[in-house]
């Protein structure tokens, strides 16, 4: 019984669509990367502004 259940779970997981590998997924990764770059750029600009004020 336990074996059958485990097999069903494994089958189910194999049927699930793998998000990585679809074209839409790359769009999501690109958007996240752009957002991250934007946030880092904001932190760097803040760092520079504070450095100038400290001088």
């Amino acid at each position: 019984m336990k074996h059958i259940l485990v097999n069903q779970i494994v089958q189910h997981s194999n049927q699930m669509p793998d998000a990585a590998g679809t074209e839409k997924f790359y769009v999501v990764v690109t958007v996240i990367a752009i957002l991250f770059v934007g946030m880092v750029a904001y932190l760097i600009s803040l760092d520079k502004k504070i450095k100038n004020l400290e001088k």
Partner: protein
Amino acid sequence: MKWWKILGIVLLFYALVAGLLLPVPKLPILEQSIRNLYYHVPMWFGMLALLIASAIYAGQTLNKKGSKYDMLSSSYAQVAMLYGILGLLTGMVWAKNTWGAYWTNDPKLNSAAIGMLMYAAYFVLRSSIEDDEKKARISAVYNLFCLPVFIVLIFVLPRLTDSLHPGNGGNPGFNSYDLDSRLRLVFYPAVIGWILIGFWIADLQIRVKKLADKKYNN
């Protein structure tokens, strides 16, 4: 810019991109949501690192009686709270996809919420005292009390009872059954990256507060 800030950016960028693109083990129920391991868990690691830094400076505040250390302590606690909120939100999304609900009556989740409320009370306490020296001393004592209680709430109590959360209540942690080499490749850089970025944000906040203090005193 200091080297550790650049390292933080590089590691976090790698963790964000590689965390979504590199292959992960196919685990029942968890499926692709296992990728949240790179974001949810490192946020809690970052939070803990910041809370420890906050407690160390709270100790310094009491030892050396300096408002400078109090400012450092409160800044680290503030960024730790930000990480805590992000950790809770990512955990809730993960819970919805694996357990079927954003919040369950689980000892780990409830303990995390109590811990966060304890630190929320720290900020309420700080804002309720006007005298700076008194505020520094009382909040430092409260901060030093909070950290061990928080650690007991998060790491000890959930292990003593039944829990859905991995690593608690008899459940194996990720480390023992599915944190394989593929996950480790991203997980460890993510932990270091989130910690470094947390300290960078705290550093910015500290410097802004110092500038404001300087302006106020002049």
